[in-house]
């Protein structure tokens, strides 16, 4: 696997958590914590252990505001899929074609959002949600997108992190982020 200059792939369970570091969440991290994929329970368990380690070590966490919107969309998709709707029907409902089917699942979608909020609340004042309205962030996001040819959402997460000059990124998206130099990508779990 090729890595960007000085980029490292860290292990969620075995690697030591550095003191006074801030850890940025990609959306796939809380998604892997809250939703359970029975065919890939290793990741779910590793994520829970890692969150406990972050809490025990009093680590700071941070995320871009887009994380909430992405988690919400994931929650809608999960609940509609559980409601036996096909991918085509789900895409249609999300794009406004037949939004009524969402109304039968509002409580479950909301429950997942509450769980996400409860998870973040465990970090108390050691969490920070960064809004793109802070001066300079949008410039960094667009710069990152063009330089590394990233998807818009990936650039949003990474650009926000790099803007704060932090380097610990928790994401299972090795393919897109391994090329970014100088970051510690917390992704290994098995």
């Amino acid at each position: 696997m090729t890595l960007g200059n000085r980029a490292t792939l860290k292990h969620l369970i075995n690697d030591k958590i550095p003191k006074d570091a801030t850890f940025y969440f990609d959306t796939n991290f809380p998604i892997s914590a809250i939703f359970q994929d029975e065919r890939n329970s290793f990741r779910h368990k590793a994520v829970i252990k890692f969150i406990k380690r972050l809490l025990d070590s009093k680590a700071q966490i941070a995320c871009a505001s887009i994380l909430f919107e992405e988690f919400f969309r994931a929650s809608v998709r999960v609940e509609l899929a559980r409601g036996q709707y096909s991918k085509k029907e789900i895409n249609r409902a999300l794009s406004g074609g037949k939004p009524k089917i969402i109304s039968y699942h509002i409580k479950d979608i909301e429950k997942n959002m509450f769980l996400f909020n409860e998870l973040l609340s465990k970090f108390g004042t050691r969490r920070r949600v960064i809004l793109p309205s802070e001066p300079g962030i949008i410039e960094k996001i667009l710069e990152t997108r063009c330089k590394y040819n990233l998807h818009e959402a990936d650039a949003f997460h990474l650009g926000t992190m790099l803007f704060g000059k932090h380097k610990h990124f928790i994401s299972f998206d090795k393919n897109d982020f391994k090329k970014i130099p100088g970051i510690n990508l917390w992704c290994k779990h098995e």
Partner: protein
Amino acid sequence: MKKKKPSKKSKADSAFKVYNGSAVYVKMPKSPRSIEEICSSGSVLAAGTSINSLINDIRK
């Protein structure tokens, strides 16, 4: 007569934090549930779906 002890209220985790030069008062209730309890209450994915496909779908 024995004095009644005041009931223990859950302490809120609150503090002033400085973000970008401005002080913000943050107050959040501490969650009484453990991380395991929170995460085990989440939905189980439907058959035929996975976390990876879910991520791909939300970023289309």
